[in-house]
């Protein structure tokens, strides 16, 4: 399948900074993939996201080298309006990315900017709210929403523009466990049912590994690992080397496996760990 995103030897140094924020990243993304990015603070995760949605190099000054292609077209040569129709973005701070005072107007904002006809906007709003499963919030005021609701409204606003790719920069960092789960359930739905390509930066590794198909680990501006979650838990050093941890249940089974108590696949979730632990017992008996 033709890649929807291809990044070649990408480096970027912010104006006024001595060190590159990201360096020599080369990677491709197939349509419909669900990718997680993790890594310590200052690893270049947000910079990479800004390179995907065109803020770099169009609005952020600095030294840009390499290529980012969306659907085969280089972002450097695209008008940034074109990029934003293909790549939807959701950011960390729910407060700072909501510009309108009602949910309906918030979702309409992008469509209005693109000059979409009012009756089409109407239909797109209904559709986006349905896809995200928040039809009930349509006429609510944005100031009275919970954090999880605000982030889902932000996702709906991005989805209403019908992008092929959705990039999210730590969308759950200000949310409680319930809000975090709500956001990931929505992403899963969008990925499975509508084939949306999703790239999400996330610190909460337990929930991330449960949902994604492919993990990028970044450190010091470089992409240091690009593996499916299953392989990541088999090589915990990929995460521990950069100061992160695999989920506790994966770690438990990893250690039991290393000590010879278990020989199967390593679990990613508590449910899988339950079956693994049962098998572990059965295998030994």
């Amino acid at each position, binding site marked *: 399948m033709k890649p929807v995103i291809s990044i070649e030897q990408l480096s970027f140094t912010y104006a006024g900074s001595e060190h590159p924020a990201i360096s020599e990243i080369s990677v491709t993304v197939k349509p419909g993939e669900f990718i997680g990015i993790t890594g310590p603070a200052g690893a270049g995760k947000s910079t990479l996201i800004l390179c995907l949605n065109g803020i770099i190099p169009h609005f952020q000054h600095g030294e840009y080298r390499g290529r980012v292609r969306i659907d085969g077209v280089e972002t450097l040569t695209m008008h940034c309006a074109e990029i934003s129709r293909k790549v939807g973005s959701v950011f960390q701070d729910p407060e700072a990315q909501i510009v309108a005072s009602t949910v309906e107007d918030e979702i309409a904002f992008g469509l209005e900017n693109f000059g979409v006809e009012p009756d089409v906007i109407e239909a797109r709003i209904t559709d986006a709210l349905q896809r995200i499963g928040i039809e009930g919030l349509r006429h609510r005021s944005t100031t009275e929403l919970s954090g999880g609701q605000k982030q889902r409204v932000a996702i709906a606003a991005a989805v209403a523009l019908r992008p092929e790719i959705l990039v999210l920069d730590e969308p759950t960092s200000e949310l409680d466990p*319930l809000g975090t789960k709500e956001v990931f359930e929505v992403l899963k739905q969008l990925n499975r049912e509508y084939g949306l390509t999703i790239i999400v930066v996330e610190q909460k590794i337990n929930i991330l590994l449960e949902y994604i198909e492919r993990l990028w680990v970044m450190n010091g501006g470089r992409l240091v690992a690009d593996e499916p979650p299953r392989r990541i838990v088999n090589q915990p050093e990929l995460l521990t080397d950069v100061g992160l941890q695999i989920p506790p249940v994966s770690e438990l089974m990893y250690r039991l496996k290393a000590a010879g108590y278990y020989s199967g696949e390593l679990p990613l979730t*508590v449910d899988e760990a339950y079956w693994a632990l049962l098998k572990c017992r059965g295998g*030994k008996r």
Partner: protein
Amino acid sequence: MIKVEQLTFAYPNGMPVLENLSFEIKSGEFVALIGQNGAGKTTLLKQFNGLLKPTGGTVRIDGIDTRNSTTGILAQKVGFLFQNPDHQIFLPTVAQEIGFGPANLGCSREEIDRRVREAAAQVGLEPYLNENPLFLSKGQRQRVAFASLLSMRPQVMVLDEPTTGQDYREGIEIMEMVKALHRQGHTVIFVTHDMELVARYAERVIVLSQGRILMDDTCRRVFYQPDVLRRTNLFPPQIPTLVQKFDCYQEDFGTPLSVEELYATITGCGGEEYVHCS
């Protein structure tokens, strides 16, 4: 150290946020306060240093009724670490920032210097004393904020989501500093959404739901009553959740909280024993 009696609190012309809470926190305890967003956790924390005063009942810090005191005076007993360090950093050097509290307390220049050095050492900021805090990383700025409360030498540390917005390593580093202070006899009360962090550090857990205390017990007992937690949309850490799936099989793993504990039970029930006896 902290005595709360029938505490009720409501914002002006609003619904009560806290309703009839009574509990005591003894000197040297390590307490986690958990609950959903909007459960009243931060509102409760702010009662401990008088930022908010009870609308009913009393909060006593070391015997002092918070209504008869001010936040400035209570700051020497209760240090408050806020979620976002950017809400307080405003001076051009780390040293001045850490010295702001003691200066407000009217300490002499030598005393301020001594306290700044001491607090910077406690959080590992000595090399940065002359830097501008705005150019430090988010994790380092959080440490500046932490040092600027330590320099007022409070006995109690109140931490509101101290690890939010930081990576795993930075979060653990902050919590390890807190743990070290706890070992020196400080009382610690912290709010977090990260249950793994609660399991790792807290001795006692208070679960808040809609302004009431749902549970107040040891960490172990709270996480082994998941049905109560679930009612407030919280999920226990992974290891207790895993162990509790085995209930129907009458498996005896005990009540482990960490990977180490469960690993030891499985292998240590002496490794072989697990294999043989099951």
